[in-house]
Each structure stands twice: as C-alpha cells, then as structure tokens.
C-alpha cells in the first residue's frame, strides 16, 4: 500500500506492506520492520527493533492527529490530482486568522487606504483581531459586514496595490 501524508506543506511518501503480524514500512529509502498492536481504538503499541513506541491517532474528516513521543502532528491527505496545495500567506492575503464575528468594518468599496490602516475588526473568544492594509491601495471588494459570522481562512477584503 502506498500512502502520501501532507504535514506543514511537506508531502511524505510511505509504503507499507503487511505480512502476518509484521509490517514493512518504507520511507526515505529505509525499510522499518515493525510489530504492532492496536490496544484500544486509536492507541497503537509498535515495536521497532528493540524500541517500543506508543502512539495515539484520531481521525477527522479532513485530517488525522498523531500523538507520539510527546509531540502532536496534524496530517492531511494528499489529493490524487497531485496538485499540491500551498497555504503560505501571500503578501496581500487578508484571510481571517480566526473564526469569529465581524465587529467593525472601517472601509467601503472604492476607498483608498494606506499600509497599516485598520480595515476590519474581528472578535473571537473575547479578543480582537485587526485586519490591516498590507500596502497602500484601493478597496476592490468588502466580503463581510458588521455582525457577520466569519470562518478562519475566509477572505475579508480585496485590495489592489497602488
């Protein structure tokens, strides 16, 4: 079986074959022969050579979480298309950093703004988040109005650099 995992924008190609109770995992040109048991749902005990690791895995719709050696990793599936999504913030990206409520909209379509101007204020968990102009520019579109619910990653305002 071949699986790709995406973690922090990197993709990991892994092969695993099962023969009886042994698993043969190949990653980065190294083969790991391991024995494994699922002790409770999602809780694995894996013997890698002399070492025993215990990991906890939970599965969501869009991601898996792995807890192992005291660290947590969130991984996503890689789409078959092979098109890797990159989620790095671009200079002009004004997506909401948080799910919350729009408490104030400072601008309207057509306004000109200066770099650093506050465009929108979003409130979540009793804290305020400010959306500021990333550069001097002109407002093309305002996607939300006051009191709107906004989700993390949704684009707040579109600005053309001037």
């Amino acid at each position, binding site marked *: 079986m*071949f699986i790709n*995992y995406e973690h*922090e924008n990197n993709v990991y190609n892994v092969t695993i074959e099962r023969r009886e109770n042994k698993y043969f995992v190949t990653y980065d040109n190294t083969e790991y022969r391991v024995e494994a048991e699922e002790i409770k749902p999602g809780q694995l005990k894996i013997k890698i050579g002399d070492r025993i690791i215990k990991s906890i895995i939970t599965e969501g719709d869009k991601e898996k979480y792995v807890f192992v050696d005291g660290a947590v990793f969130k991984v996503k599936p890689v789409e078959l298309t092979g098109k890797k999504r990159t989620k790095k913030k671009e200079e002009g990206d004004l997506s909401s950093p*948080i799910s919350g409520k729009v*408490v104030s909209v400072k601008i309207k379509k057509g306004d000109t703004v200066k770099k650093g101007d506050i465009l929108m*204020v979003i409130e979540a968990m*009793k804290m305020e988040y400010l959306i500021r102009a990333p550069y001097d520019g002109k407002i093309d579109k305002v996607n939300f109005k006051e009191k709107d619910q906004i989700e993390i990653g949704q684009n707040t305002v579109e600005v053309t650099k001037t």
Partner: protein
Amino acid sequence: MIKKVLVANRGEIAVRIIKACQEMNIKTVAIYSDVDKNAPHVQLADETCSLGDPTPIESYLNIPKIIKFAQETGADAIHPGYGFLAENPDFAKTCNDVGIKFIGPSPKVISLMGDKIAAKKTMEKAGVPVIPGYHGDKQDNKSLVKEGKKIGFPLLVKAAAGGGGKGMRIVHSKETLEESIESAKRESKSSFGNDTVFLEKYIDKPRHIEFQILADEHGNIIHLFERECSIQRRHQKIVEETPSPVMTKELRKKMGIAAVKTAEAVGYTNAGTVEFMVDGDLNFYFMEMNTRLQVEHPITEMTTGIDLAKWQLKIASGQKLTLKQKDLIQRGHAIECRIYAEDPSNGFLPSVGKLSKVETPTGPNIRDDTGIYTGMEITPYYDPMLSKLVVSSENREESINKMIWALSRYVVLGVATNVSFLKKVLGHGEFKKGNITTHFIDDYFKDWATSEKSLSVDAIISLAVYDSMHTKKQEIVRYKEADPHSPWKHVGRWRVGGKGV
C-alpha cells in the same frame, strides 16, 4: 452554613467549586448554555439550569436569568468563579438585594478595586507604593495623549475595568498613542461595558508577583505568600509558580504586610489577590487587586496545604478564619501551566474544533483542573483555556522536571494547543535559572514556530500502521487494474498515491 450554591460559571473553575461544595455537603446548582449541555460541571452538579443561547451576554453574563435560577432552585449563595460576573459589582449587589449571599467581597469593594484608578489612589493614601501614571477623569483622546507624553514612553494604556490583558496596550512612541488608546477603549467597552482607561509608566524588566489574601467577616486577614506570574503572552499568564525564584525572606515579609494592608484599607472580605509589579532592583508597586478566586490559586493550595475554595465557602457562611499567619507554612515548590486551545506558532491565535481525544497524565502531586472531555466541541464563545496542569514537589528543579514529564504525556487532539510551547518554555535555560520577566516570551520566543516542523519517523510509522490496520481490502481501489504494481490506490476516505518500490 450555606446549604445550596449556584455556581455562575463554566469549565474547570465550575468543576472545582462544585467538588469543594460536595465535600462540604453543600448542594450545588450548575448553569449551562446550549453548547455546554454535556460539560463536566453539568454532569457533576446536583441540579442544573439551562441558559440556552451560548452568547456570553445571553448566558453566563445574564444577571436576571441567573438570579431567577438561584431563586427557583432555592440556592442561598452564588459563587461567581473568575471571569464572567466575578468582578461585576452590580451582580454582587443584585444578589445581596434578593437575599442571596454573593461569595466574594462586598459590591462596594468590588466596585472600588474594579476601578483601577480609584484603587491606585486609595492605595497611595494607605501608603502602599504604586506605579507613576495618569489616573484622571479626563478621558478625551487629546487629554490622554497629553498626559501620556508627560509620563514618557514606553507606557501602558489600561482599561480601568480590565483584567487578563484585555483592553491593555503597550505604546512605544507617541505616533501610535492615540490609535492604542482608541483600540483599548473599544476592547474595554466590548468586554466590560466601560471604556475608561488610564496610563502608567512602563517598567523595564518587570516581574509580576502577587499575594494571596484570605479575610473573614470578623476583621481577620492573612496572606498565603506569593505567586510568581511573570510568564505571560498577550499580557495573560500562562505559567505560574510559587515560591518566586527571586523572593527573599525579607521581601516576602514586606510584600506580605503590604498585601494585608491593601486588604485592610478597603475592608476586604473573602479570598482575593494583590498584584504587584517588581522591578530589577526588587522594588515593588501595587498594580491591582483581583476580588475573586484566581485562576492560579492551586499552586498556593499545593504549597500551603490550604483549600482556598473551601475557605471561600466557610468565610461566606460567616465562619471565623481559624488559620493564623504564624502557623502557615510554605513548603516545596509548585508550578501551574495553563493549557490553551491556541497556536503559539501563529500569534497564539485561538483554535476551535472538536476534541477528538483527551488523555491526561496522572501521578503523585500532579493535579489537572479541567473542564474538557473527548468529544467536546471548543467553540469561539468563551475563553480558550482548556485546563490547568499543576504539579508540586520538594524543590523547583524537581517541579520543572515533573511538569515537563506531565506535559509530554498530555494528550489533546483535534485543536491546536500550546502544550509543546509550554514544554519549551519550561525547558529554557533562562527559565531554569529563574531569570524571568513579563517579557520572557517576547524575548525568547518572538518568532517561535512549532518544533514539529517535520513529521518524525515514529509518526510516519504510526500513521502507516494505523492506515494499514484500518483499510479493508475492498477499500483499496486499483486505479490501473492492468498494472498490478501501480502505486495508485484509494484508502477509505483518504486518497493515497506514491512511487512504487
């Protein structure tokens, strides 16, 4: 003795208070909003009342609703916990007016201490040192900017009604002063319904050290030593410890006396905390008094052996403080870490979602004050604190080791948390040496990114084994049946691919 307490709060502090009541054979009433229907505090209480709409103002801040529930259930007292209505003098007054005991100080004292300006003026008069600043009535931007320029930079803009870093701004130069004042006012208005601010000198290399107070209704006041709370992000404490690594026997005595004097000056009753700022030369200044049980109260409980929540109930019942200052013993060392649903590598942004797994470490002198459970939905309605992990041991070094051990075994999956970050803070060389100020996080973790930048081999193996175990043969769909060695297969909901070996 009080017979039935309505707990006007949620999460770990509601759980903490309900347990204290039950051990004292006091009946408990929990209140809950729709999203908290199955929360631990609801499971634990003897009776429960539904608040409906989870919006804070409609639920845990809704005074008429809460008073009505208390009356309907026959509660003779209300415990406000911390946050929400804990420092709302109107709420305390309404309780008194309808003959329900508010577990905390009098509305007058809450009101005075809630007004940071009036509080400072009172303390200045009482001879407790305060930080230079502007605490005046002129609240127009122009006057405030003028006063700010007089104090000099850096300075702090603080909401008079604020707390926990809300409505607070540091201003480094006159250019951003007005904007900061406006923003602080706006946040204060939204959080506390009051936009009065004050300005004060910003102290370099400051430590935040506070003293726990217990005062009965018969004039007896004691302090239960200090808590060092300098490790903060966004002006909110995340790691607290006691004793403070900088404390000396003499300073403890002086600050303890000042703390008791603070409480005396206002006729304080019940549990409270006097917060001081301590500078590099160990000068200390009164900052504010928190008129409630503090988030970090467990570290005091672990080092003194005193149960503060139970004493709150005893004092509110009119009992005398039988604890004497000279009999109190500060023993060993305790640390608390606040576990938040937030992403430390992305500006500590709160994270929402469903907790797919919660499993917490246990062991001698490990206390986990928690309000979460596997399957719980973390919503944007309330504070993103998930739990408080507290440890104690014979000395600071062992407590740090114990905390790192416990954090390494603290499993919360489904949202981003600060667990790895806390572990890095505790393991930092300067923290270990006790060289901490309120700038610690900014100084050493400014651009901290998660240490788990790449998948570990153990994680890769775990995932692959898990997926292999949970993939039924019929779920593996071959995309090119003609080629039996094709790398393209389909595993359950997960699309898989990769080069052949």
